[in-house]
């Protein structure tokens, strides 16, 4: 009788590897989840409010009602993700008990711990975490994250922060690769990342887990831009269901991620999608309204 091993790092990263080249969409109802699945989403993120509404309505943003999450899990056959507050390991225990497929320890919700993230090694369910730079990404991986995404600036429809974070992470990796071996000790100290992971990234020339873009992606062109910069796939939050024609826009973004290097197809799928989400320039947001600074 051979042993079945569950919850290993290989199967945690393995699911993220199956999501590559795909689009993960925020949904707030089972109906939206169906629309996302029908449009070709590889997974959905089950939420009570999309980031644009969290931003507008204010207040404390927490894990969603388990009943809503379960209804969304029943509605679709694709993986379902859900968010917990940074450091709120009991919300994570609850989501694991519900059987969600991936947990996003997310800066979009109000942090529960201003010093510590969740020890994600303690869970069988895999975690994705946001990062603005290589040090932050590697700290999350050290804590057990099996997937990384850029933070971007959620709920704005402005891609500028996602670009900044992707360029920062990927640029730091390129810089690391050109360093002499004796230079990585100081580099690891400077970016606040474990030396062993820094060494691994230098050898691999990329993050040791799957790396998606998130935060402000609103059009097929935004999605293809992030793919051409070198990420493995895309999260779209408010960008779909805050637009005029969600099913059409969702399907167009899915096609744009597959054909991210084919400008003719990108032109074709970008036609006649109706109004994108209204959006908000990140530059106009006061410092305290920016979510990307949450997490340590």
């Amino acid at each position, binding site marked *: *009788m*051979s*042993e*079945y*091993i*569950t*919850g*290993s*790092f*290989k*199967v945690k*990263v*393995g*699911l*993220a*590897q*199956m*999501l*590559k*080249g*795909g689009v993960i969409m925020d949904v707030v109802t089972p109906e939206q989840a169906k629309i996302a*699945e*029908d*449009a*070709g*989403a*590889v*997974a959905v993120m089950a939420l009570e409010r999309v980031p644009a509404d969290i931003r507008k309505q204010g207040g404390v943003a927490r894990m969603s009602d388990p009943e809503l999450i379960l209804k969304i*899990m029943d509605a679709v*056959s*694709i*993986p379902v993700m859900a968010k917990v507050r940074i450091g709120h390991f009991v919300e994570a225990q609850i989501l*694991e008990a519900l*059987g*969600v*497929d*991936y947990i996003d320890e997310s800066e979009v919700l109000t942090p529960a711990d201003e010093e510590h993230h969740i020890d994600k090694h303690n869970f*069988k*369910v*895999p975690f994705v975490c946001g990062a603005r730079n290589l040090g932050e990404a590697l700290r999350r*991986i*050290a804590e057990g994250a099996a997937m990384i995404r850029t933070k971007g600036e959620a709920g704005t429809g402005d891609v500028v922060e996602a670009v900044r974070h992707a360029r920062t992470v990927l640029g730091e990796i390129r810089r690391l690769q050109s360093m002499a071996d004796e230079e990585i000790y100081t580099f690891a100290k400077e970016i606040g990342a474990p030396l*062993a*992971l820094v060494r*691994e990234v230098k050898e*691999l*020339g*990329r993050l*040791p*887990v*799957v790396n998606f873009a998130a935060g402000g992606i609103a059009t097929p062109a935004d999605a293809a831009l992030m793919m051409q910069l070198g990420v493995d796939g895309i999260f779209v939050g408010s960008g779909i269901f805050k637009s005029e024609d969600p099913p059409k826009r969702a*399907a167009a973004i*899915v*096609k744009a*991620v*597959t*054909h991210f290097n*084919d400008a003719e197809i990108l032109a074709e799928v970008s036609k006649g999608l109706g109004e994108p989400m209204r959006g908000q320039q990140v530059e106009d947001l006061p410092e305290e309204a920016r979510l990307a600074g949450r997490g340590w």
Partner: protein
Amino acid sequence: MNHAPNLIPPEKAPPPRDEFTVGVLALQGSFWEHEVMLRRLGVAVREVRLPADLNGLAGLIIPGGESTTIGKLAVAFGLLEPLRAFGREHAIWGTCAGAIFLSRDARRSQPLLGLMNITVERNAFGRQIASFEADIPVPALKTVAPADERPFRAVFIRAPLIETVTPPAEVLATLDDGRIVAAQQGHLLATAFHPELTDDTRFHRYFLHLAGWSAAAAP
């Protein structure tokens, strides 16, 4: 720290041994991981996103991913009929979502190639927390690795089961309890698990053997 297998290409890919080129359907999923395995074996690889990309290929791998996504994209870009025609003449191997795509019935309405006489049940083991690794015997791998006695380390990610296998399709591998996880029908191959998430090249060499690659049994 363990890292995700096959995210990284081999340092210096050996040059292709001949004109033999294998395609990997690159609509969505773990196509890169398959490409890394093929390059490690010295095989030339082409990503397939549009029907014209199939021209001249000796075989095709349909990777893991989300079968609904892959199916919808295949329909949107006119790939269903070209893939069916390709599979009547050439080797195709589907892993996980790819196996579902090759089947003739997945118990729900989604685009399928219907090339193999198998039916599948999607997410048969449950959700992600039930995803697992297990060692399984695959006697057919002896064809390409006669001296290798090891079981195959099978990685199941929200995996399907192959429910029925009807001739000319045959069972290739099962779990201890007899549940079917791999099947073959002539030059068509379906696995519910992901050899592309391991370092073991035996399944890839077995597929290349079906595709007519003369060096498949080379060490």
